[in-house]
C-alpha cells in the first residue's frame, strides 16, 4: 500500500507539471505487455514450478526545456522518467515487491542555472556522475559552480534511493551504497589552451560519504584526470581511496589512441579491492582485503564504409584465496558489424576464463548473431545467442536463446512492436515469452529556439 501511494504521488507530480509549457518538450512512452512463463526454484527433490506472468507496463519519459520562470533561472528544465506496471498473471520474480501494482521513478528533477550558467542547481531524483560518485542515485540536490580560471566546484546531498520507494537504509535496499544520507562533492580544474576542441587537462578531487543510521557505510576520496595534449591521444586516470578502510578501493588508467580516423585503440590497467565496494556496514566487509588487477586492450576498426570490427582482450590477475598467490584469468571478445542501406548484420564472439567458487576454473565461450532490416512500412529483427559454460549450472552447460521482433510505424510518432523470445537455458530451463509494445516518441516545439 505504501508503494501504491508513493507511486500515486509521483504521478501527481507529473500531472502537475503538465500545465507548465516549455520551448521544447520531448515525450516518450512505451506501453507493453509481456506474457510468458517463469521458473520458480524448488527445494531439493522437488520439481521447479512454472508461473505464468503477464505484466503490463507503462514506461514514460518527459523532458521539458527552456521553461521561463519567475526566478529567471536560465535553461530551466524538468526531467522525469518512470514506470508503472500491473501483473495480470502471477507476480514476476523481478518485480521487487509482492504487490501486483508497482512502479518507480527512475529519474525526476528540476535543473536550472543562474549568473550566465555559472551556478547550476538540480533538485530531485538524480545521479552523482562526476568524480567518484559511481552513479550513486539519490533523492536530493546538487549545486555546481563554474569559477574563474577553469575551476569548478560541485556539492551534493541526499538520500540514497531504494527500490519501489522502500527503505533507504538497512539490509533490504538494492542500492549498493545503501544508507540514509549521502553527501560529497568535487573540486575540479580545467585547462583548455586551444588548438583543437577537447585539448587540455581536467583534474579533480572528490569526496563521497554515505552513512546508515549514523554509521559510515562509505567514505571515499576520489581523484580523476583527463589529459589530451595531442589530438589523437587521450589519457584518463582515476582513483578511489577508502577513508574508512584506509586502502585504495580502485586505481585505473587508460590510454585512448585515435590512430587514424578509422582506427581506435585503447589500453588500460585497473586495480580494484572488491571488498571495499561492499558497504562498510556489511559484516562481510572485514573478511577479505584482496586486490584484483586487469590489463586490458581493445581495438576498433572501420574496415570499410559498411563494415566495422572490434576486438578486446583482458588479462585478469585474481587472488587465489591462499595468501598472496594469484591466478590468471582471460577475457576476450570480438564483434563484426555490417550495414548497407536499411540492412544491418552483426556477429559477436566472447570468451571468459576465471576462477570458480572452488578450485575448478569457470568460464564460457559465447557466440551471437543479429540482424535487422527496415522495409518501407515494417522492420524485422532477429537475435540468436548461445553460450557453452565450463562448469555445469543446474546440470546444464549450454544456453541457447533467441528473439524475433517486427514493428511498424503508425504515424504521428506512434509505432507498434511485436516480439517473441524463446530459449533453452540452464537456470530458467525452457522459456518463452511474447511481447507487444506500443511506442510513442515525439518532440514538441512551441517556439523556435534561437
Amino acid at each position: 500500500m505504501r508503494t501504491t501511494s508513493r507511486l500515486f504521488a509521483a504521478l501527481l507530480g507529473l500531472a502537475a507539471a503538465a500545465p507548465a509549457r516549455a520551448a521544447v518538450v520531448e515525450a516518450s512512452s512505451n506501453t507493453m505487455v509481456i506474457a510468458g512463463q517463469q521458473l520458480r526454484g524448488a527445494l531439493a527433490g522437488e520439481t521447479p514450478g512454472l508461473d505464468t506472468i503477464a505484466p503490463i507496463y507503462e514506461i514514460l519519459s518527459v523532458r521539458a526545456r527552456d521553461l521561463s520562470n519567475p526566478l529567471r533561472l536560465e535553461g530551466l528544465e524538468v526531467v522525469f522518467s518512470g514506470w508503472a506496471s500491473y501483473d495480470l498473471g502471477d507476480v514476476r520474480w523481478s518485480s521487487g515487491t509482492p504487490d501486483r501494482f508497482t512502479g518507480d521513478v527512475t529519474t525526476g528533477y528540476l535543473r536550472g542555472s543562474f549568473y550566465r550558467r555559472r551556478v547550476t542547481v538540480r533538485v530531485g531524483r538524480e545521479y552523482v556522475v562526476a568524480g567518484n560518485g559511481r552513479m550513486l542515485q539519490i533523492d536530493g540536490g546538487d549545486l555546481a559552480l563554474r569559477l574563474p580560471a577553469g575551476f569548478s566546484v560541485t556539492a551534493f546531498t541526499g538520500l540514497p534511493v531504494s527500490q519501489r520507494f522502500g527503505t533507504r537504509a538497512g539490509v533490504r535496499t538494492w542500492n549498493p551504497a545503501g544508507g540514509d544520507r549521502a553527501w560529497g562533492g568535487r573540486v575540479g580544474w580545467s585547462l583548455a589552451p586551444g588548438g583543437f576542441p577537447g585539448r587540455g587537462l581536467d583534474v579533480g578531487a572528490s569526496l563521497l560519504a554515505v552513512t546508515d543510521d549514523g554509521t559510515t557505510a562509505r567514505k571515499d576520496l576520489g581523484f580523476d584526470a583527463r589529459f589530451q595534449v595531442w589530438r589523437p591521444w587521450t589519457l584518463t586516470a582515476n582513483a578511489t581511496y577508502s577513508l574508512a578502510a584506509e586502502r585504495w578501493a580502485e586505481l585505473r588508467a587508460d590510454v585512448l589512441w585515435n590512430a587514424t580516423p578509422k582506427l581506435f585503440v585503447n589500453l588500460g590497467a585497473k586495480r580494484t579491492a572488491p571488498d571495499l565496494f561492499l558497504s562498510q556496514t556489511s559484516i562481510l566487509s572485514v573478511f577479505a582485503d584482496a586486490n584484483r588487477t586487469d590489463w586490458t586492450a581493445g581495438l576498433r576498426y572501420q574496415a570499410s564504409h559498411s563494415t566495422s570490427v572490434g576486438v578486446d582482450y583482458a588479462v585478469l590477475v585474481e587472488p587465489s584465496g591462499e595468501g598472496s598467490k594469484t591466478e590468471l584469468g582471460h577475457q576476450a571478445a570480438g564483434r563484426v558489424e555490417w550495414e548497407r542501406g536499411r540492412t544491418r548484420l552483426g556477429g559477436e564472439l566472447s570468451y571468459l576464463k576465471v576462477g570458480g567458487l572452488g578450485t575448478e576454473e569457470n568460464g564460457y565461450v559465447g557466440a551471437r548473431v543479429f540482424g535487422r532490416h527496415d522495409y518501407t512500412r515494417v522492420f524485422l529483427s532477429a537475435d540468436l545467442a548461445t553460450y557453452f559454460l565450463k562448469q555445469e549450472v543446474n546440470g546444464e552447460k549450454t544456453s541457447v536463446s533467441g528473439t524475433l521482433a517486427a514493428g511498424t510505424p503508425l504515424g504521428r510518432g506512434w509505432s507498434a512492436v511485436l516480439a517473441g523470445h524463446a530459449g533453452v537455458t540452464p537456470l530458467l530451463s525452457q522459456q518463452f515469452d511474447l511481447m507487444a509494445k506500443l511506442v510513442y516518441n515525439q518532440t514538441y516545439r512551441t517556439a523556435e529556439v534561437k
Partner: protein
Amino acid sequence: MDRHLLAAVALAAACLSACTTKDARPAAEAAKVDPAFVFTHAPHLENDVDCLACHASVVSSTALSPTVRHAAFPAKNVDACNGCHDDKDFKAKVKLAVPARAREFSVRMNHAAHLTQKGVTCKSCHLKAPEPGDQEPPKLEMAACTACHKHQADYAAGACLPCHVDLKRYEKPVATFRHAGDFLKTHGSLAKPSAASCAACHDQTFCAECHSATTVAGKPSLIFPEEVQRDTIHRGDFISRHQIEAGGDPASCLRCHGPKFCDSCHTQQNLTGRTTLSAPRDPHPAGWANNPTGGDFHGFAARKNIVACAACHDNGADSTCVGCHQAGVANPKNPHPSGWKKKSSDIVKNPMCGACHR
C-alpha cells in the same frame, strides 16, 4: 514519509505552475525584453567602413556577454566618418543606445582569439549586419565556423562544448552520432573528470537506462528487443552466466547492484538458506563447509571473492558466518585476513563488529 513526499510534490507543482513558455511570449512583450536594432549598417558596409571603427573593443573580447555590446562611436571623427559625415559634431546629434541583450547566447565565442588570426575579419563570419527594426541579428551560418574548424572530427569526438553553450536545444541526430572507438567501455573514465561535457547533450534519463539498476523497469534489451545492434548491458541469457561474469570482476556488480538485489532473486529461486548441500541448485562444491584442507573450502573462496558470498549471506548479525566465527564460541576461527587490523576509527565504531565481538 508519504506526507513528506506529497508535500514535496505539491511544492514542485506550485513552482511549475508559475512557469510559462519562454519563447512563446506575445511579440509586444518580447519586444520589451529585446529592443529592435536602430543602427543602419548597410551604407557603412557598402562604403567599406571598418567595423572596428565603432566596435573597437571587440578585439580584446574573450567571451560573449549580454551586457557588453562592444558598440560605441569613435572618440573622434576618423577618416572613415568624415567621408560622409562632414558635420563634425554629428555624434552629439545622434543618440546611440545599445541596451543589454536579454536572450542567452547559444555559442561561446572568443573574438580576440579569432581576430588576431591571419586573414580573419569581422566579415569572415558576419556576412550580414542587423538593420533598424530587426529584433535579432542575422543568424550566423555554421559554415562560417566549419570553414576553419574541423567540425566533423569534433562532432565524432563529442567535443561540442568549446563552442556550444548547451546542445539540448538542438535536434540531436542521435542515429548518426558516434563516439570514437569502444566508447561504451571508455565513457566512464571520461565522464568522471568531465561530466559537464556529457550533460551538454545527455540528460540523466539517458544514463539511467543502463545505470539505474535500483529503480528501472527492466534491462534495455527486454524493453527494446528490436534494437539488436545496441551493445546493451546484460543482453540475452545473462542470468545463466552472471556468476561467471561476477567472478571475473566482482567490483563491477557492486557499482550498480547492492547485495540484496542478488539475494531477492536467490531467495525466490531457493538458493538461499533453504538448500541442502549437494542439491542440484546448490552453488557450493563438496567440502565447502568444513574441510579446511581441501581447495574448495569456503574460507579460501571468501578471501578470493567476498562479493560472491555477499550475494546471499549479507544479513548483518544474522549472517551464516556469525554462528561459527563469533568470538567466545568454542574454538572460533578468526575470519579476518592475515595482517588485518582496525586501522580506521570508522570501522571500530561500526555496530556490526558487535555481531561477533560481543
